[in-house]
């Protein structure tokens, strides 16, 4: 049965192995094979196996007998066997006795019958007075009968009874006969008795002979042994007995590879070496000592049978006296099972881990999704709210500038402040969500820290409603220009300043900027000192050379007002600098020299302190200060308002920029918020460049007289009283350009739709700009028209009837005029319209020239004189906007360009002037860019305009002297760059096919333009 099952299993395994071999590891396969090999031999060689099995039992017989005699278990086994035998014997006795009982019963019955008969005889004897002796004899016999057993007597008796009736009844003979007969009967009875006694004797003897149990026991034992062998012959089982020294006394092993003498009398350790042997020995010893049976799984790795795991059962064997004689042990090889189990466990573990991970992941995903959704929602909502809200606020703002009575004004103001607050809150939320979601991108732009500080303070001062002094200190070593995200830095500063102002009721609020040597503290001292000494040296030199070249803000009285009360080490230097009264240029040079030593290190850490003399922050509130929606206390929010987001944003922004923000505060004395940020110092920083740039930049938003302060002064102050006067001097030049009326006008017109004037934003009519403005052009054109000046004919050069457009046209022509080449007289001009125009242009140029020169600065004149050296560029473009944009771009690239509006005009221009480059729109009215290019190329090749004439261009366009010109210049091919709108009709191939050299796709960008210009201009 077992074997069959095993075979089934094996077959199953085999199949599995065959089909799913890839799924199982190699070792599994091996196992399968092991089984496979084992199996077929099994069925055939049953006998052999049995023989082997007998061999496999290695017994120390003496010991076994001893064991059976002395060990409790052995004796109990014997007792059991004896008991069994005794029971059997008893059973036999019982059976015999039962038989005996039965016999005696029968005898009694027959006796009874006999008695009956005898009674009958007695009766007869009484009648005849018969002999008493036989009766007595009979009696005697009867008595004997009773105590004797004679199983088969009954039949005999009956037969004898029948025999009785032979002789004559009641005769002597009869009686004699009867007497002899009875005598015979007696004899046989005696004989039978004898036989029975013998039999009994024999039986007893037999019994005695049988009573020795050894043979039977040994038979039983042999049977048990055979049975065990049968059962165990294939089981991967080891059975053994070891004495109390753990020496093997008996071992049964299915796969014996050791001979008897190798095992018997030796311990595990002596037989095997390798992992697990010691453990099993120890385990056995433990069982031996504790006297309690135990099971254990032990993995062996021996040279003898490799790596195998056994489940070992060890039980102690006790003597009758209760002392341990040794241990029985039984081991079953469970390597495969263990392996499977382990694999299962591993799989289960993996599955569990996987599942856990999955759930975790799901959770995370869920949470993330939720968070993202929430954030997105928040951001979207905030954004959605903001757009209309900013509309409301700005409209309210505008409303507040209109004529309102006092009550209305108040209402509007409330609206404004509420709107501002909500807007601020939404902006804050958006900023936060941006920072948190990592969307916030930082920009790296050059900016001037001094300017930023000044602007922030200025802005704060403008809306200041308290009597506070706002001041700014910028240490000398702070570079003039650094690179960073100025918007964000400004945001932080503004936030901190407005916070400071909010919580300060009297005293001052200020910003201090100074360079710190980065986050590394030991560098600090050294470099700092070095810089300081350098600085003072330079300073001394400056003081000597140049005491005072420009008005300085750092006048002594200003410092005396207590602005420069720096407690830091920077203080000293600041004071020195203040005394130095250095000029702007010198300031810059100081900067350079100071920076030089650490030029290689382009990052500078600037510390910014925003301090106030306000209510301060209680110590316990400081830890939560930078947390979202946290304010110092509930009453703070009530009293001062605010969202509690500002500081959180500031801190996050500071950290985003790679810096950090801290706060120190003393309640009722004020707080100082400090943030330290790294900035890149722009390497190109030589002073002359700087100055140019500065003036340029400052022209942007400040009037020139205010410039010097911004760039290099280390101190600003906005006193509450002097606010107005200070401000007027600082107000930007641009502000004055825009009159409030213009603005109002504009808003009024906004709804008017497509009106000519609707586009006109207030412009500075005084600015002497070459490009001019549309409005300027308009007015000029209008003026020209109303005066009926001969030049009004200009208007008709283009088909557009719009006066302002024609004004622009005039402008454009004006640009054309500026080129000196144009001034070369073109006397051959025919009487056609075009010729007239050219003439007029010349005239106008002559008229305009002095005007312009008077308007323009001297540098402009210089530029004009220089233009001859510059490459001449022609732009052929019909779209006015593109013209304007391109011209502006070219200007920024340092080129003045001539402009024409279509191909025909382009041909004319080319004919008159030598151009170094033509930018040609492809799609134009009158004549497109492709044809124009073809005609120009044909002219370049042939030296005449015949092709153009063939194409139907008016002959008058080409003056006779064109031939002359061609002589000198036809050799050179003008680079023509197409400007394409990227449409299918304007493919690059077509451009090239028509003789163009390159193309720029629209919309034209500065970069694109620059690149293509670099390609063709030296």
């Amino acid at each position, binding site marked *: 049965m077992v074997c069959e099952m095993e075979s089934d299993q094996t077959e199953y395994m085999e199949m599995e192995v065959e089909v799913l071999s890839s799924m199982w590891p190699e070792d599994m396969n091996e196992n399968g094979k092991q089984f496979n090999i084992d199996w077929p031999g099994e069925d055939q060689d049953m006998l052999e196996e049995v023989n082997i099995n007998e061999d496999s039992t290695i017994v120390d017989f003496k010991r076994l007998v001893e064991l059976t005699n002395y060990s409790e278990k052995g004796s109990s086994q014997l007792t059991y066997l004896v008991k069994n035998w005794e029971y059997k014997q008893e059973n036999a006795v019982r059976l015999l006795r039962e038989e005996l009982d039965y016999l005696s019963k029968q005898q009694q019955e027959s006796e009874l019958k006999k008695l009956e008969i005898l009674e009958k005889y007695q009766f007869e004897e009484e009648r005849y007075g018969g002999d008493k002796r036989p009766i007595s004899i009979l009696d005697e016999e009867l008595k004997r009968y009773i105590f004797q057993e004679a199983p088969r007597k009954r039949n005999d008796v009956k037969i004898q009874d029948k025999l009785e009736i032979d002789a004559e009844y009641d005769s002597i003979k009869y009686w004699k006969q009867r007497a002899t007969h009875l005598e015979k009967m007696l004899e046989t009875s005696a004989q039978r008795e004898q036989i029975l006694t013998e039999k009994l004797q024999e039986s007893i003897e037999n019994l005695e002979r049988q009573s020795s149990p050894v043979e039977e026991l040994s038979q039983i034992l042999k049977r048990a042994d055979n049975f065990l062998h049968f059962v165990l012959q294939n089981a991967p089982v080891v059975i053994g007995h070891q004495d109390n020294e753990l020496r093997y006394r008996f071992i049964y092993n299915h796969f014996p590879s050791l001979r008897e003498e190798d095992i018997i009398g030796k311990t595990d350790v002596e037989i095997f070496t390798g992992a697990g042997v010691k453990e099993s020995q120890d385990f056995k010893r433990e069982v031996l000592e504790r006297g309690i049976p135990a099971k254990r799984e032990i993995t062996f790795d021996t040279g003898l049978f490799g790596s195998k795991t056994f489940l070992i059962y060890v039980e102690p064997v006790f003597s009758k006296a209760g002392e341990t004689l040794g241990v029985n042990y039984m081991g079953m090889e469970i390597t495969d099972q263990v392996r499977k189990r382990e694999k299962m466990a591993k799989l289960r573990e993996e599955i569990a881990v996987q599942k856990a991970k999955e759930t975790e992941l799901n959770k995370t995903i869920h949470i993330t999704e939720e968070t993202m959704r929430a954030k997105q929602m928040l951001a979207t909502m905030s954004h959605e709210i903001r757009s209309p809200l900013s509309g409301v606020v700005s409209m309210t703002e505008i409303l507040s500038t209109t004529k309102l009575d006092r009550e209305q004004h108040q209402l509007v103001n409330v609206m404004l402040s509420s709107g501002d607050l909500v807007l601020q809150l939404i902006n804050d939320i958006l900023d936060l969500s941006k920072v948190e979601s990592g969307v916030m991108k930082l920009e790296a732009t050059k900016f001037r820290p001094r300017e930023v500080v000044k602007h922030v303070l200025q802005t704060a001062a403008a809306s200041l409603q308290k009597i506070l002094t706002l001041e700014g200190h910028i240490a000398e070593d702070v570079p003039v220009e650094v690179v960073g995200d100025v918007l964000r830095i400004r945001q932080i500063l503004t936030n901190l300043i407005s916070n400071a102002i909010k919580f300060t009721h009297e005293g001052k609020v200020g910003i201090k900027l100074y360079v710190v040597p980065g986050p590394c503290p030991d560098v600090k001292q050294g470099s700092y000192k070095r810089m300081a000494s350098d600085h003072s040296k330079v300073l001394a030199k400056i003081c000597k050379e140049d005491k005072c070249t420009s008005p300085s803000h750092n006048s002594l009285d200003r410092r005396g007002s207590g602005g420069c009360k720096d407690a830091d080490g920077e203080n000293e230097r600041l004071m020195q600098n203040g005394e130095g009264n250095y000029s702007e240029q010198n300031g810059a040079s100081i900067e350079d020299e100071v920076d030089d030593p650490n030029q290689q290190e382009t990052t500078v850490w600037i510390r910014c302190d925003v301090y106030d003399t306000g209510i301060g922050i209680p110590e316990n509130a400081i830890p939560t200060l930078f947390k979202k929606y946290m304010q110092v206390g509930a009453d703070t929010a009530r009293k001062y308002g605010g969202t509690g987001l500002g500081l959180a944003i500031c801190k996050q922004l500071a950290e985003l920029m790679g810096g950090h923000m801290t706060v120190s505060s003393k309640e009722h004395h004020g707080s100082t918020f400090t943030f330290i940020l790294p900035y890149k110092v722009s390497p190109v920083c030589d002073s002359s460049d700087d100055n140019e740039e500065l003036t340029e930049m400052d022209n942007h938003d400040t009037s020139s007289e205010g410039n010097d302060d911004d760039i290099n002064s280390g101190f600003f102050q906005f006193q509450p009283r002097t606010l107005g006067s200070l401000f007027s001097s600082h107000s930007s030049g641009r502000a004055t350009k825009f009159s409030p009326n213009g603005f109002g006008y504009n808003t009024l017109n906004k709804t008017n739709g497509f009106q000519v004037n609707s586009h006109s934003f207030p412009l500075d009519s005084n600015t002497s700009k070459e490009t001019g403005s549309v409005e300027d052009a308009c007015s000029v054109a209008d003026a020209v028209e109303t005066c009926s000046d001969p030049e009004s004919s200009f208007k008709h050069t283009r088909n557009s009837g719009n006066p302002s457009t024609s004004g622009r046209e005039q402008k454009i022509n004006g640009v054309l005029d500026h080129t000196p080449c144009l001034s070369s007289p073109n006397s051959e001009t025919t009487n056609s319209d075009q010729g007239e125009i050219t003439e007029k242009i010349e005239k106008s140029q002559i008229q305009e020239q002095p005007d312009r020169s008077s308007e323009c600065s001297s540098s402009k004149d210089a530029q004009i004189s220089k233009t001859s050296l510059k490459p001449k560029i022609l732009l052929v473009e019909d779209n006015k906007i593109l013209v304007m*944009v391109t011209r502006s771009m070219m200007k920024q690239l340092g080129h003045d360009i001539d402009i024409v509006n279509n191909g025909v005009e382009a041909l004319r221009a080319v004919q008159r002037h030598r151009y170094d480059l033509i930018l040609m729109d492809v799609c134009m009215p009158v004549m497109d860019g492709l044809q124009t290019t073809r005609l120009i190329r044909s002219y370049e090749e042939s030296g005449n305009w015949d092709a153009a004439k063939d194409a139907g261009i008016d002959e008058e366009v080409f003056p006779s002297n064109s031939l002359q010109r061609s002589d000198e210049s036809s050799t050179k091919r003008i680079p023509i760059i197409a400007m394409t709108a990227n449409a299918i009709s304007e493919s690059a191939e077509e451009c090239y096919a028509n003789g163009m050299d390159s193309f720029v796709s629209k919309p034209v960008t500065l970069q694109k333009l620059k690149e293509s210009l670099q390609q063709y201009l030296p």
Partner: protein
Amino acid sequence: MEVGQLQRSFVEYMASLFREGFLDAQFSQLQQLQDDSNPDFVVEVVSLFFEDSERLLNDLTMALDQPNVDFKQVDAHVHQLKGSSSSVGAQRVKNCCAPFRNCCEEQNTETCLRCLQQIKQEYLLVKNKLQTLFELEQQIVAAGGAIPMLQ
């Protein structure tokens, strides 16, 4: 309203214009072109764009109103409009031009009219937006602040 606030609004507003696709990088180009020698460049160009676009839109309306529509003419106008809008970075207007030109090619008056309607709408939108932007700019200038630049 304080200058900082105004500046912030300005930046946000501008950013929103870019984000919502009213404007594209070309507008930034314009802003970069504006310098002290040409301080009102953007306003000028945009004004010119308004003027030009209005003329073109009027022309288009007229052209499509004719019993026999000259699609070549219409196409030329749309091309002009496309050039103008792309030059100032009025992205959404520009984006309407391509389908419009397709309609012209198909000579489908009805779809052309629809395109015109759409383009008009987009134009008005961007015009309003830009005007608001310039107003903000002026407010900032009036309040003494500098116009923040958007990268």
